[in-house]
């Protein structure tokens, strides 16, 4: 996959008028498949993410769990959520779910964002933040049903997983996929990943006795470019707060559908200093530029 083919812009936040070049390509959507039933919580993907994105270290504290920190952080985009679950039938599970941006087909973050070009969705499904256009208003934080975007008080910008759009643009798989030792992570086209997921779900139901096994690809937001296989799809909440029916907050839906054009004009006036940037010239490398030294000062965990 060449850069030009895979990073076709499909939507642009806070942008009036049509997206240049939209609809020109018929490239299939990319997708990351996370089979939580074969994840061993080794955190190789966490390390790969930190290293590939050259993130400064985040000080952590012991928090009565194997989980590295309570939630993702502006400089920690990929986190295994560890959950000790006692089910109603008395069975016990230690669930490990790789938590990161879901790259929603209908991204709440993008819908909420008023800054032109701060969030783009490529035609391959990747939702990417363009930090140079981010105005730090944090609307995306409230717009996201998965609590993914994280604000850095230092740079006054918001960051999240890019699905390694820089790697994917060069025909490589995301760094986490490459690092995963068990092969519980897969990367490919959405239809291929759904097929793989269905196969595994069937195996879980027939061989392993997980009757409620299923694929998580929530249609309430048009599906996602990150898809889970769960032992129990009837209750995704137990995997560390995975919403069963994620929705973009109503206010943002309304904003998007009805008031956006007006709101946009308003915001353009309000943020006159914001340099408007047309993304139509083609894709860019969406790497964030975190500060060289750790100045956040925020502890990832609080002590009990």
């Amino acid at each position, binding site marked *: 996959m060449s850069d030009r083919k895979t990073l076709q812009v499909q939507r642009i936040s806070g942008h009036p008028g049509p997206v240049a070049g939209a609809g020109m390509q018929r490239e299939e959507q990319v997708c990351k498949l996370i089979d939580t039933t074969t994840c061993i919580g080794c955190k190789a993907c966490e390390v790969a993410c930190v290293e590939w994105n050259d993130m400064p270290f985040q000080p952590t504290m012991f928090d009565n769990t194997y989980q590295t920190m309570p939630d993702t952080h502006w400089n920690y985009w990929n986190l295994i959520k560890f959950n000790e679950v006692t089910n109603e039938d008395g069975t016990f599970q230690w669930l*490990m779910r790789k938590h990161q941006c879901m790259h929603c087909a209908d991204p709440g973050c993008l819908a909420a964002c008023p800054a032109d070009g701060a969030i783009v969705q490529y035609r391959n499904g990747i939702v990417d933040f363009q930090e140079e256009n981010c105005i730090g208003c944090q609307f995306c934080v409230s717009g996201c049903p998965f609590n993914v975007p994280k604000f850095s008080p230092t740079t006054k910008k918001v960051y999240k997983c890019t699905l390694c759009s820089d790697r994917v643009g060069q025909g490589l798989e995301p760094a986490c996929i490459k690092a995963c030792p068990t092969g519980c992570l897969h990367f490919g086209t959405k239809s291929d990943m759904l097929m793989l997921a269905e196969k595994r779900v069937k195996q879980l139901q027939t061989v392993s006795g997980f009757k409620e096994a299923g694929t998580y690809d929530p249609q309430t937001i048009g599906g996602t470019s990150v898809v889970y296989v769960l032992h129990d799809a009837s209750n995704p909440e137990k995997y560390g707060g995975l919403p069963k029916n994620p929705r973009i907050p109503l206010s943002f839906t309304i904003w998007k559908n009805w008031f956006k054009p007006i709101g946009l004009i308003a915001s353009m006036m309000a943020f006159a200093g914001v340099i408007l940037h047309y993304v139509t010239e083609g894709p860019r490398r969406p790497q964030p530029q975190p500060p060289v030294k750790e100045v956040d000062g925020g502890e990832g965990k609080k002590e009990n």
Partner: protein
Amino acid sequence: MTNGWVDIKNTDMMLIMGGNPAENHPCGFKWVIEAKRNRDAKIVVVDPRFTRTASVADQFLQIRAGSDIAFLGGLINYALANNRFNHEYLVNYTNAAFIVKEGFKLPEDGLYSGYDATARTYDKSTWNYEEVGAGAHASDTHSHAVQSSPVPPPTLPPNVAYDLSLQHPRCVFQLLKQQYSRYTPEMVERITGIPRERAIKAWETFTSIRQNGDMKKAGTIIYAVGWTQHSSGTQTIRTAAMIQLLLGNVGRAGGGVNALRGHSNIQGATDMAGIFDILPGYLKMPVPADTDLKTYLTRTTPKASKPKEWDSFNYWSNTPAFTVSLLKALYGDAATKENDFAFNWLPKIDRKYSWAEIWDDMYNGKVKAMMAFGMNGVMIGPNAKKNIEALKKADFLVVCEIYPDETSEFWRAPGTTPEEMAKINTTVYRLPGAGFAEKDGTFVNSARWLQWKWAAVPPPGDCRLDQEILARIFLKIRGKYQQEGGKLPDPILKASWNYTNPNNPSLAEVAKELNGKALADVTDPKTNTTIKADQQLPGFAFLRDDGSTMSGNWLYCGSWTEAGAMIQRRDPADPSGLGIHANWAWSWPMNRRVMYNRASCDLNGKPWDPDRKQIWWSEAKQKWAGNDVPDFKPDSDPKSHMGPFIMNPEGVGRLFVPIGAVADGPFPEHYEPTESLIANPLHPSQSNNPIAKRFKSDMDKYGTPDQGYNIICTTYRLTEHYHYWTKNNPMNVQLVPEPFVEIPAELADQMGLRGGEKVKVTSARADYIAKAMVTKRIKPMMVDGKKTYQIGIPIHWGYRGIAEDAGKTAKTPANYLSPAAIDPNAYTPEFKGFLVKLERV
């Protein structure tokens, strides 16, 4: 491993016990997942804690630490009672039909026949097979005894009595049945704390691959130091081997007994004699009674011992060729026929020099100095405080490391006052070593693969490669001997040291030396191939006992031949799809990927499972052929009934281990850990392993429940850290920043303890303070009717490291707590399943 990492993908059933591979071997664990995904393989995990491995298992059973033999003995009992074994395999490939000598007694009272209570040893003469025709005078077979030793050790009879119907009351099969009939589900529940229905379900599941003896499927047993680190560790692994023999799983793709080694090159360290009682290639270490080479070889070279009608390859009969070739590698031209190939220059061991004994000797003032390379001695041993005290008494200590570690800074262990420090006279030399990415050379992995690696970056600053440091020390010492002489200078002066750069030998040269070469032309009479003098040997079949070959380790012979460095090969091709990858690196012995693979075929040489054809007998070629290299005599017609277990003099696998090859009994028996909450339900009067070693110094204390030590404690590692190194690396520290103690939620509730609060763990030896991780992953259990709690401590922290230097930890090593109680065979300490008490701080 009898098999290999990749081979796990071929399995239908896994018992993972005494190991937590998802945690400690995440990369290798991909093959477990492959088997699950592609073959619908089942995973049964048995562990004291619900681990990362348990999180992807089909069944998890929480077991009391140190009661593994009881669970496995119950499994044997279940398999025997439910026809979950294959008769053909059992009768022909194991010693099930062999008849055991009269006078042998099973340990109903906890002791086998021949126990001497004062010496705490066994007389093993009844632990033997019956000789055909031998009545009362069976002991006359001791004809090859070492002359100078007063009581000759028993030897195996050449002509073993047997009963193929397996009905003889003293045949191994009947004794096996009798031994494990005591391991009923009720008894197993009392000992292990596993509810009987759960245990039965797990046994049913694991043995289901051998339903009515059908051989199509294969099951594997995967373990690690969770089995070895007990006072009956070797016997636990023996039990696993017996199960796999009984079920006909050894030698088969997807089968085997698979030890996961905990470090990248631990297998290599063992192969190269990192243990005091062996020489490279598992040759036995000489003892003082071995006054000359002949005596040594007579003692250590086994003679075939089998039913007369059967054949046995008895591969160790080549011991003389292996030994002489090793001596030629060690001493070169100075080893001649006339001087017994310099046999007497080898050290002879008069007693045990295992890890814990070395430290005990230092503590008692007998060992005066230590060189610590590639290990953090203070941290890795049991009863670590004693090791620190021992070092205070030493004259000097040399530590080669890449970080300042607890061993080189033993003098600043927590609690040492400035006054005490002033009194320590040990001189510490710190040598700057190189890290793994800065060195080339080989790693030998768990699958016995020798894989060459290339240095990624040069060592920084003044750091030096290990071989350069060792070479310089050796040459300095040799110089001293040259100038000043010494007591026995020859082994030092005449050691072979023909490296291009003697001060810094290239590891490629060393690897070639380990493979070995011809010193004169040698011809294989069968194939009529000749290896010319000075050529690298193609394999150990060419090794000779007349001094015409040399090899530093016979097992590695074939790894670097005239065709090049087999260990550097990187061809991933796998035409058979069985994960053999014959041209990727090289595995000992002779690039066989699955050991004992003759047993993957039936008596006639046909694979048990036509879909997983490893090797087979080719009637046309009158040879064994295969996808893998046959681990067998290549032209042995199945009709000759040669046993597949060619390293045993019997040619068959040992359900019963004769003459004390395993010191604590021919069959494994459950003994309580050295420190235990209960008396052994099987035989309360003989609760512990009668011959496990305990130490007697004032610092070697062992706790009892009466003293208030009422909780079982076990120690382990985490995925996020690598032993005691990564506490110096910010990335790893970020993932798990501080030490902790895992505590069952129910126990924490009773104590009013919340996660993150500090707790003090105290054993009879010391205490340890860290934060509590309150978890539902460890549940209370009923052991022999008593409610029992287990806690767990990851071992990674000490008094040097990022968290330690920042004052975030109590700075005490976890091994302050563990007891120096050691297994009588492998001398491994009991790091798991000792007693502690727990308090809030």
